[in-house]
């Protein structure tokens, strides 16, 4: 078992929203990793994505499509973001990540929307993290560089469409 693991946004989101699909799997997985003494890492990119996903007006019944002000409900999401550093370790994005990203994009021949996944990979490699906990099978293409740890879910639930 790796001593530190990067936690992807699609695991972080159900971990804090029990009504979402995969909550039980993600909760059990992260709890077990913590109890095993594994360091759980996230990045600024994951935090931003988490906040955007949690506030998307089509995700939860409680939210309305307000973009320019902070609704009361969103304040509760901010509270979660504030609490993240007490559970996760947060990597920064040093210049080395920016240097790594174009190399990886060229190496894996990646363009368009998978650039964001590749930036996660660059962040992990720069910080010597070789395992990611993710539900996103798009990371399979990086399996020569990192190990993908999936919370126990049925295969049919995984995203598999090519981009």
């Amino acid at each position, binding site marked *: 078992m790796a001593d530190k693991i990067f936690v*992807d*946004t*699609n695991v972080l*989101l159900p*971990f*804090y*929203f*029990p*009504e*979402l*699909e*995969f909550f039980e799997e993600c909760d059990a997985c992260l*709890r077990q990793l*913590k*109890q095993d003494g594994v360091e759980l890492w996230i990045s600024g990119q994951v935090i931003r*994505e988490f906040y*955007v*996903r949690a506030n*998307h007006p*089509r*995700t*939860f*019944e*409680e*939210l309305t499509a307000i973009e320019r002000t902070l609704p009361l*409900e969103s304040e*509760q*999401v901010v*509270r*979660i973001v*504030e*609490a993240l*550093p*007490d*559970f996760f370790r947060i990597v920064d994005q040093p210049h080395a990540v920016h240097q790594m990203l174009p190399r990886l994009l060229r190496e894996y021949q990646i363009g368009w*929307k*998978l650039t*964001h*996944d590749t930036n*996660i990979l660059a962040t992990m490699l720069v910080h010597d993290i070789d395992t990611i906990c993710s*539900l*996103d*099978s*798009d990371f399979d293409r990086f399996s020569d560089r990192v190990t993908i740890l999936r919370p126990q879910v049925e295969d049919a*639930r*995984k*995203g598999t*469409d090519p*981009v």
Partner: protein
Amino acid sequence: MVMPPVIQGVEPPTQFGEWLSGTARQITRPTLRPKKFSATEISAFEKYIGSVENMAELWEWFVDFVRRAGQDDDTALAFEHWTREFGLLAAFNELEQIGAARLADYAADLIEIADGWHRMADAGLIEPDLPPQLAERVAHLDALIRNLTEEITRQYDNDLIARLLMRVGKQRQLTLDEQFRLVDAVRLDWKVKEEPSVRRADWYGADGR
């Protein structure tokens, strides 16, 4: 309505907050010597805060004062002087009589006060340790919160626990149990309208799902 105490040389204002705002202005940074209040002034003040009917007003003002004290040196000095000179925290006993429903707000405010104190201590304005009375009140409130958990709403309960644990987390690393408790406290059991995709690539498309 009990009027604010009269401070010698200061016109009595109509609002208590105005009175102490004026007091704060008298204590200037260059001297670093807070104004000494006379026994008469202290007595008048204690009489004022002894009025239960004004407790809510006093409390709201006090919290606002502490918030500002974290950002303003003059107000911080006034706050330090105030707590030392008046033994104000004894008035907290009165506040608790307001009732359990109000207690949740009260406890949350007390946490903010402790936070304000630590911010001022970090800025080197005051001693780092909480005044004994305030520390006792925080500990007492912590116990009360546990006992009153069933009487306050779950949201209040979680909010208080989250704030307490995050404050502790700024001073030391939380234990594993505390980390799990914090996660439970901030979780949101919102009803799902539409399950988001697990693929990051889907989030950055035109639809953003």
